[in-house]
């Protein structure tokens, strides 16, 4: 899987400090198309920070990140809480930064098993439904790489397995790479092709 043509993101020797705290200490990884790579580690190990560095949202102090030229990324962030004062429907959420057609939105929601939710207020969705809608939103960008930060948070046990099954299925159908953050070792072992374990740096 690891020949250079299929590589989506390559990173090597990443170091990052925030003030006194070392966040990343000599981290490197490769993500290829069609591969599910999971970052695991305790809270504070720098998983989300590493993802931000890989996406180019922040810069590491040293080390190299190489993204495939023109790489399209679908991102599902960790914390997604819409303030109750903000009236937001699923339809609007799907078209925040792009303009998908009605047909594209329906197809995308269908792909994640949330076909009937298009006109629901986001605030009324369950944890599992919300993750599916965010996944549909990421898929609308036709991503070569899906980045999922704790995709099973606030999802019940059966829902968790279903979501992992769905992610695997999406990978199989679309052949995209998947970079996932989790702290649940048990489920991750079953569904990942590869794992990167981050500890708390000393």
């Amino acid at each position, binding site marked *: 899987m690891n020949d250079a043509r299929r590589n989506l993101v390559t990173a090597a020797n990443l170091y990052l400090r925030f003030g006194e705290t070392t966040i990343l200490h000599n981290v490197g990884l490769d993500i290829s198309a069609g591969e599910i790579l999971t970052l695991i580690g305790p809270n504070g190990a720098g998983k989300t920070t590493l993802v931000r560095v890989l996406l180019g*949202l922040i810069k590491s102090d040293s080390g190299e990140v190489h993204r495939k030229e023109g790489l399209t990324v679908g*991102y599902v*962030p960790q914390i997604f809480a819409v303030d109750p*004062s*903000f*009236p937001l*429907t699923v339809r609007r*959420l799907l078209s925040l930064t792009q303009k998908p057609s009605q047909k594209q939105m329906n197809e995308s929601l269908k792909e994640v098993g949330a076909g009937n939710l298009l006109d629901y207020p986001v605030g009324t969705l369950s944890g599992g439904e919300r993750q599916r809608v965010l996944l549909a939103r990421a898929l609308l960008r036709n991503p070569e790489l899906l980045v999922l930060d704790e995709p099973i948070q606030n999802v019940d046990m059966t829902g968790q397995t279903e979501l992992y099954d769905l992610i695997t299925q999406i990978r199989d159908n679309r052949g995209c790479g998947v970079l996932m953050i989790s702290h649940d070792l048990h489920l991750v072992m079953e569904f990942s092709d590869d794992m990167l374990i981050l500890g708390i740096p000393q």
Partner: protein
Amino acid sequence: MEDFILRALLGGIGVAIVTGPVGCFIVWRKMAYFGDSLAHTALLGVALGFAFGIDLRLGTLAACIGLALVLLLLQRQRKLPTDTLLGVLSHTALSVGIIAVSLMETLQVDLMGYLFGDILAISDTDLLWIYTGGAAALCALAWIWRDLIAITVHEELASAEGVPTFGVQLTFMLLIAFVIAIAMKLIGILLITSMLIIPPAAARRFSKTPEQMAVFAVLAGIISVAAGLWGSVEWNAPAGPCIVVAASVLFLLSHSWEMLSGRG
């Protein structure tokens, strides 16, 4: 209708058209205290305007932008929470403003007028400022609308998808300062935030999209201005506070309806 009441009504409606949509973002982005701090700084701007002999609105704008920049600088140090920083800046600016204005007694500055507004003393120049300035503010808001909505829903997601988050947020901060500068004379610096907060809060119950909420907030603002002015004339009470009370009544009505219809 008396001429001065008609002008007050026109001015108030002009302000409500701008504060409705801008206020929605202040509610959604939890910036009420920021708006309050900018408004408190406005008095310092008035003093600046007198001291340098420039238009008071420009003085206000300069002082508000100054406060926003100082806030950004202090926030970067990450030593104290933002609401504490705002508390320090806001009350310092208000106190310095009151001292400065009271030292200018020879100029006969109407302190109460600036604190609580003097919508009945509105001039044609004020009207011109409100409508041209308001139109400019709405154009600027329309220009950043889509990006600001995306940032309001999720800043990091917007940033990952290519929205220039810093520039858009800076533009919005400047926009708030501008709106306060043009609306200050009508509602007063201690009450101006209420025109930004209460009409959107009253509109939330009836809105399914952000745009609907902005339009309903404008309507709620216009009703508050008209009802408040009527009450002010009827009971010979100060107009600014009357408008705020009218807006609060609307808010309570919308809220009780929500509770009665069992959706609270």
